[in-house]
């Protein structure tokens, strides 16, 4: 988990595209919204794995949002039910459910369908928000944090020193905090 956080921090501070972390953030939200344990989730994760996005950010976002996603479940459930009951889409769903493999996507589950739809709809806003946040961080906060007393204090703490080392290792160009 520490490595994961370190990689996330490295992604924020290293010379990586802000879009990488932002897309990792957006995909993490999508994976958090879709219940795990079905083929859809595995397919999404596999596709995201091969794309240029920040995996650590994605996983961390997924883990963090999973903790709170239950709050949104009623909405997600209602959205999924609404979609699954759309008469226009019914032939498509019937064909899909009778096609080999596709039933393993569990698309006929309200949370899966709702979560997937919500994740897709929220992907672009999440991406944009994430990108803005990364840029803001890099422009406004990063240097201030690097020179703050708090960071220097943290660097003396063994656990946080380990974290700093991990960040160094993960980040290729990072010259902040200790450098």
């Amino acid at each position, binding site marked *: 988990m520490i490595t994961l956080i370190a990689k996330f921090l490295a992604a924020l501070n290293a010379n990586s595209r802000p879009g990488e972390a932002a897309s990792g953030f957006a995909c993490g939200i999508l994976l958090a919204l879709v219940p795990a344990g079905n083929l859809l989730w595995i397919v999404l994760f596999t596709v995201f794995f091969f*794309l*240029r996005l920040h995996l650590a950010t994605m996983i961390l976002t997924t883990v963090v949002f999973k903790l709170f996603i239950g709050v949104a479940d009623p909405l997600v459930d209602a959205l999924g039910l609404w979609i699954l009951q759309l008469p226009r889409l019914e032939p498509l769903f019937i064909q899909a459910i009778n096609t080999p493999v596709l039933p393993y996507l569990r698309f006929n589950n309200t949370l899966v369908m709702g979560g997937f739809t919500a994740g897709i709809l929220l992907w672009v806003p999440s991406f944009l928000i994430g990108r803005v946040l990364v840029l803001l961080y890099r422009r406004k906060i990063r240097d201030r944090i690097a020179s703050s007393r708090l960071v220097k204090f943290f660097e003396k703490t063994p656990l946080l020193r380990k974290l700093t080392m991990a960040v160094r290792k993960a980040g*290729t160009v990072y010259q902040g905090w200790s450098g």
Partner: protein
Amino acid sequence: MKKKRLPKLFRKPVPAGKLEKKILRRIHVESERKFLMSRLQRDDSGRYVLPEELSADERKHLKQLAKSIRKNRGVLVGWKAGILAFVLIAAVGFNFFLKNRLVEHAAETALQRLFNAVVEIEGTEFSILKGTIGFTSVAIADEQEPMRNLVELGRTNLSLDTGRILSRRIILNEIASREIRFDTPRTSSGALPAAAKTDEHGPEPGAEDSGSGDTAGELKTIGLEIGRESARQIIADYRDSLQSPQLIDSVQERYAETSERWNTRVESTDAQLDTVQTSTRQLLDTDISSIDTAQEVQDYLAKLRELQTSVQETQKSFEATYEEYQADTAFINESRKGINTAIEEDLSFLKDSVGSFGSDAAGIVASAAQPVLRERLGSIYTYGERVLRIYRRLHESSSGKESRFTDRGREGTTVNFPYREYPGFLLKHFELSTGSAASSGFSEFIIDDLTGDQETWGKPTSARFSTNPSFGREDTSLSTDLIIDTRDASASLMESSSELKAYPVEVSEGLESLSVDSLRAESDSLFRLSIQPDLSGEGEAAINLTDVQIDLSETDSMIGDAIARILDDTEMVQIRVSFSFADGTIDRMKISTDIDEQLNDRIGEYAREQADKAAAEIETAFYDYIDEELAANDLLSDEISQQGRELVENIRNAEDLETAIDEQQAELKSRAQEEVEKQTGELKDKAREGLEELGKDLKLPGF
């Protein structure tokens, strides 16, 4: 100290446009961008270039920067895309170049190990995604005769629905092997170069004569020859159906019982009569003339009256007993009448039985065929039951299991859409064929929709077997269709129909009643069998016999002769069979043939003559038989009558005793009267004499 080289990205001068597009756009940290721009210099042509006099730290920094710039290119991660590409290229390469060869080699090797001989497979087509494997030809050499093939297969396919495997459903679209040929010649030796011969084939165990048992069973012959001996035999056979023997037996039993009972009663009355007679005789033997006194008369009279009362009571007792006897023995007459009626009815029955010989003959061939057909059709049921047993085993083993997929944590609601369920196991099409439809010899065995869960699949399992020629005869063909339907709404569990053409039939058992030793013919048969879920069912068979040849028994027989003549004039014999079965045995069978009617006409006249003769013989034999029974009854009847007569005699004796007593009383009264009169006269005389003497002695005044 050797200077580190500049990163490749920065070795050559970079135009301003390329710097902006390829480098600066990929630097997302402002400090890094500033660092790079601070180190870059412009050359004469306006291109950006790094100076040679950079420190080691600066070179190191630039190297890391160049690395990060490279990393920021593209949508896919390089090494991940490489893995993906490798997998795709390997899959495509394997699919196009290696797959079929590997499968062919693997199959050949496995079969060669199995058969210890060369196996040649050609035209292999294997597809993982489609789930198909097929060969255009497979030749397996004979280990014992290397220049011949054990078996050759034509187009052979196996197709599996791979998509359903993920749903834990084994759906076999097709298993087919066509144009199978056995023992075909080879152009090259089929012996393996260094085949390891194993002694796995031990000597075959001796074939058991499983079919040689008394499978025909006890085939009853039908007694048709009517003669004196057979008349007795018929009576013996029909004894259970006759009334009179039973009635005679029961009457005889009652006679014996009655006789025994009345014998005791009669003896009792005899003893009673003897007692009364003895006491009467003693009393009547008294000489009345010796009775002188009135007292004696009175005493004797009292005894007589007492005896008379006793005799009267005895008489009444005897009369009551006799009435009881009459009531008890009244059945004798009734029984006799009943026996006579029964005898008449039995005779009529026996005559009718013989008389119906002609009408019985209407089904004579059918009757003779019944045991043979019962045995042979029974085997159809056995096979059917065996098929169902195997099918049920399949049904039990293929109960579909629910998917173990479950939502963990967040469950949501599953919206159910119409879903085509598949059974756990399904073989859509299975086909084996030898030869081809165009060639002279062709056999095929096809199974469609084989599954243990027909309810889910929605179709019954069907099978077809056809062969031509078959049974080693060029012109014989057999085709069988079978449908097994275990669905709840199905009308029957199993339906089968078979057609057998030009099949030689030879029957040498069970035709004795027709005076036929053996029968040979060509047959065209159509069988239909229907089995219900409780294993009961019904079947039909239509058998047409042509070119019928029979061997008659040596003994002359009108029936045999008639059959021979009919068959000479008839081109085809039609046999129709309908039967039903339950609990594994045939419980009803109806057989009709078209020659039975003809046979009936031919032998009708003969039958009637025989019937008349037989009726006479039977009547004689029956009376011989019944007279013995009746003689015993008559004896008992006479005995009972004698007992009645004895009772009547006893009553008469009692009456005689009473008469004797009456007479004795009358005599006694007469004697008493006489004595009274005598004594009265004597008294009168004495009185007169006394008066006279008194008058003499007595002198009255005035007189």
